[in-house]
């Protein structure tokens, strides 16, 4: 394509602001600029022509906000007209090598989990614009002014899957080089490159001075041509109007410096005019373009954090994986995603940099579960994730929805594996773990594993995947079955790094299988592997021995500046081991719950169990009476919500101990009736619902938590599927109580025996009666009392 050819060997010039020019031409505040494609086509063309005259080569169509969310059914036509106007301006201008970019901005809504727009809806919105733009004759797609990595991912996928056009993508950074979501420049580069953009960069938000400060980071990481489209200075409000202060000459001088440093596409955003662009083109036109160099950093990212593999050794937490973990298995079966997220937080607290996520269990739908787990994890935890599945279908769905550039676990040297996994990595981006095994099994020698790694790297290249995006796993074998197993693996790590220049990874714990005190061997092996240049290890970050090996290695090898991490971790005196509880402390569980002390409650529960006390007795004689006392105090106004919940959490920690105990005995705790909880459609506030959930669970109810913003149909479907008798609905505002009412109506029709309790900020008894609820819960405990009354439980 001529545009891509020009991009190879020239500095290219975008145009300047459209909005600023339209305001000068009389566009009113609150008026949609894209409407002018219908009402003032000649003005739009004049602006385009002015930019062509200034020397700009790429016109951005007046279609920034022409999406169906903002313009409804007129969106497609607005895009078509906008692109056509730019096309006509280029035709009239009559000179070669001028291009029309179909300009696409963000939807103006936030995607889930923060907002209410789904990834698919965002994708569909952008796809419509892309198709309309290509049909109307655009030469490229320009995605600009995005703040959210997930939204630009939806747009970029829409562009790649719905047109053959090249894509340029730019985002808004603040002066610290961060997006509003917190993502940094390396993370953005990794994401956009991985998704196959053709040129990437920054626009809007800042003036050229600040762009100059940020450009070096872009150039350091980007293997693609870099775009700089700054504002004419920082926006300033003057008499209620937004003004920009940088004059054309100053602007042009700054742009020239950026071109000399290596920026390849130059243009302008808010506040820039044809005068700015003309001054810029004049001094930049004859500058030699600096070559775009392939970069070698291995980057993995989330929506706000980037991890570079190869700098310092990286820890990948292995705990979100059901293999050999009973509680995790049960949590996945029961769709208890809070447990899964807590496991993630625990690993983060212990120092994990990336979390491996494996949810493969024979009896569950792995694809659905993986999507949900990733969504929940990314709602709470900012660490990058490693998607771990043997199913290409699961991998594709997860890679599509993941916010950032993920790690992919894994591909092997088998042809079938490479054919399935590489197209996904090539399409969605990612850093893939490559296992050194193939159709003939695992080679017994280091050279054999190197040969497979070489084959994998070579095959990946044929899919366009760079060696920087491959992390080779030389496979840890068990020493007890072959005495030189550890030596071979270590040798392979060194050899693969040296010969192929790729990063390396190992799962460590396999080495000690079948031997006692496994942590001793694991930690020793880990240190040896680190010394051989291991870049990442998949381990349990909660293992003290492994973390000691890790921090010790960093300190010894000069990777821990001033020993900060080491001292921070180990300078404090050993925390005293809690004394074994004696039988005399019989009141302690009751007291611990009453006082809201989590650790003490768990400790006391364990002590009771060790003494042989029946779980049911512990619950009925200790936990429930304490909860009752606190609940009553809350009702009477002597205990306040924070304290009520502290007791609830203490009780919960004791219940977890009991649950684990029963599981070891192969039993499960008996649960009471199922109760569905949901925050209704349109409502994104779920704290009230979450409070009720904790309390109901304390009283033994089997809570099915459908989350927030839940459609009526979904609630009814789950009510029928699970045959529940009680549903709790929460809504915060009058606008969402409407959905509460419609949910109740649908429920009453579909399942007349089902009772509905409601709660939330705007609700009152009257209001609840009016919408047909069976019960209005004025506070958190009220729902517990209602459930007890309904199911004839007394305590």
């Amino acid at each position, binding site marked *: 394509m001529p545009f891509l050819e020009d991009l190879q060997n020239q500095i290219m010039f975008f145009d300047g602001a459209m909005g600023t020019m339209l305001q000068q031409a009389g566009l009113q505040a609150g008026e949609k600029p894209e409407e002018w494609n219908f009402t003032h086509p000649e003005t739009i063309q004049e602006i385009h022509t002015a930019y062509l005259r200034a020397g700009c080569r790429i016109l951005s169509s007046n279609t920034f906000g022409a999406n169906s969310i903002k313009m409804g059914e007129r969106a497609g036509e607005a895009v078509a007209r906008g692109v056509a106007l730019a096309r006509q301006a280029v035709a009239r201008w009559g000179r070669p090598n001028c291009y029309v970019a179909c300009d696409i901005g963000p939807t103006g*809504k936030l995607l889930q989990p923060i*907002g209410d727009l789904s990834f698919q809806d965002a994708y569909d919105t952008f796809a419509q614009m892309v198709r309309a733009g290509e049909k109307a004759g655009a030469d490229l797609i320009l995605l600009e002014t995005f703040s959210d990595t997930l939204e630009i991912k939806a747009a970029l996928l829409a562009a790649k899957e719905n047109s053959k056009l090249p894509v340029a993508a730019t985002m808004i950074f603040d002066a610290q080089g961060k997006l509003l979501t917190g993502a940094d420049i390396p993370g953005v580069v990794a994401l956009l490159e991985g998704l196959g953009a053709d040129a990437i960069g920054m626009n809007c938000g800042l003036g050229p001075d600040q762009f100059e400060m940020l450009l070096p980071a872009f150039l350091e990481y980007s293997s693609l041509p870099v775009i700089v489209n700054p504002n004419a200075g920082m926006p300033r409000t003057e008499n209620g109007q937004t003004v920009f202060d940088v004059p054309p000459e100053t602007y042009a001088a700054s742009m020239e410096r950026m071109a000399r440093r290596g920026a390849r596409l130059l243009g302008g955003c808010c506040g820039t005019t044809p005068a700015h662009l003309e001054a810029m083109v004049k001094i930049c036109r004859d500058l030699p373009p600096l070559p775009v160099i392939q970069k070698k950093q291995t980057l993995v990212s989330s929506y706000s954090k980037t991890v570079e593999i190869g700098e310092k050794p990286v820890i990948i937490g292995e705990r979100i994986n059901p293999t050999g973990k009973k509680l995790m298995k049960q949590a996945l079966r029961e769709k208890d995603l809070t447990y899964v997220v807590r496991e993630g937080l625990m690993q983060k607290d212990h120092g994990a940099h990336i979390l491996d996520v494996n949810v493969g269990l024979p009896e569950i739908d792995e694809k659905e579960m993986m999507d949900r787990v990733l969504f929940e994890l990314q709602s709470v935890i900012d660490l990058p994730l490693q998607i771990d599945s043997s199913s290409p279908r699961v991998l594709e769905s997860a890679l599509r929805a993941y916010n950032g550039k993920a790690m992919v676990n894994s591909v092997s040297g088998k042809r079938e594996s490479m054919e399935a996994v590489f197209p996904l990595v090539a399409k969605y981006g990612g850093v893939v773990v490559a296992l050194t095994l193939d159709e003939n099994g695992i080679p017994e020698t280091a050279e054999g594993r190197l040969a497979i790694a070489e084959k994998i790297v070579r095959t990946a290249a044929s899919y366009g995947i760079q060696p920087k995006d491959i992390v080779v796993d030389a496979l840890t074998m068990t020493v007890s079955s072959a005495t030189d197993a550890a030596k071979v693996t270590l040798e392979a790590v060194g050899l693969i790094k040296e010969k192929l220049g790729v990063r390396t990874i190992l799962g460590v714990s396999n080495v000690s299988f079948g031997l006692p005190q496994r942590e001793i061997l694991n930690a020793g092996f880990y240190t040896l592997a680190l010394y051989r240049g291991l870049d990442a290890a998949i381990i349990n970050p909660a293992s003290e021995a492994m973390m000691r090996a890790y921090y010790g290695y960093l300190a010894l090898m000069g990777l821990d500046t001033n020993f900060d991490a080491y001292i921070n971790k180990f300078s404090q005196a050993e925390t005293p081991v809690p004394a074994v509880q004696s039988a005399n402390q019989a009141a302690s569980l009751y007291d611990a719950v009453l006082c809201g002390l989590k650790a003490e409650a768990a400790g006391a529960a364990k002590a009771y169990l060790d003494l042989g006390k029946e779980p049911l007795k512990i619950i009925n004689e200790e936990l429930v009476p304490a909860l009752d006392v606190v609940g009553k105090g809350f009702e009477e106004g002597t205990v*306040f919500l924070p304290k009520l*919940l502290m007791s609830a959490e203490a009780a919960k920690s004791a219940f977890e101990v009991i649950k684990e105990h029963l599981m070891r005995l192969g039993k499960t705790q008996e649960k009471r009736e199922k109760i569905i909880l949901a925050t209704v459609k349109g409502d994104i506030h779920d704290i009230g619902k979450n409070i009720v959930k904790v309390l109901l669970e304390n009283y033994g109810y089997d809570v099915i938590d459908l989350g927030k913003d839940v459609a009526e149909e979904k609630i009814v479907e789950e009510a029928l599927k699970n045959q529940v008798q009680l549903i709790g609905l929460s809504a915060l505002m009058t606008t969402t109580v409407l959905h509460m009412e419609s949910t109740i109506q649908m429920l009453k029709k579909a399942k007349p025996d089902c009772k509905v309790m409601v709660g939330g900020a705007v609700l009152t008894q009257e209001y609840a009666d009016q919408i047909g609820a069976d019960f209005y819960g004025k506070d958190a405990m009220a729902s517990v009392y209602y459930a007890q009354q309904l199911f004839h439980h007394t305590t």
Partner: protein
Amino acid sequence: MEQIEREILRYLGYKKASPPEEEVLCAIAECREQAARLQPRHIWTELPIQCNLEKNAVKIGEEWVHSSDFTRYISGCIGTVVLAATLGWEGDRMLRECSVRDMAKGVIMQATLAAYLEESLDGLQEQIKKAYAEKGLYLRSRYSPGYGDFPISLQKKVLEWTQAPKRIGLTVTESCMLSPTKSVTAFIGFSPRKEKCVAKSKCQACENRNCAFREE
């Protein structure tokens, strides 16, 4: 006790007569430490107004809004500042993380963020007040969509006027909820005369008399 701590306790339902427990105060201190890491973002602009007292309506910019409460609030003003502020994506994430770890911490963080946001708005209002004082203009207190009969549906216009989605990442959902959730929009009327605003405060304007958070 600092003002912000008193506000947090009020949001948590503590009354003046009931002192908070030591462990709750500790948790509040932890939450405040975390919240201090957030960067509140805000944006504001100015709009002309035109009152029609008979019809209980006010024209804000180009938009006619029907609301007797807002008309009462703004009457006597010659224009209004409209502002939007948010604790951003990170505020919402922080709240969710706290709730997953421990629900008690979750509700305390919720109250802390609310108080923290109000405090940052007070700071912003002080700045605006100074700027307007130079022009001989006096500000009223803040007034937000959703107070009394001032329609919540106006949020969409507020975000258009302030360009909040692009400038500070604040958006509104289909049901007029601000997203990220820890966000506020408000009007601040200004007039050339220093006079007491006759409008009811946010608690007085609200019909929910049993609300646990109602100011005493």
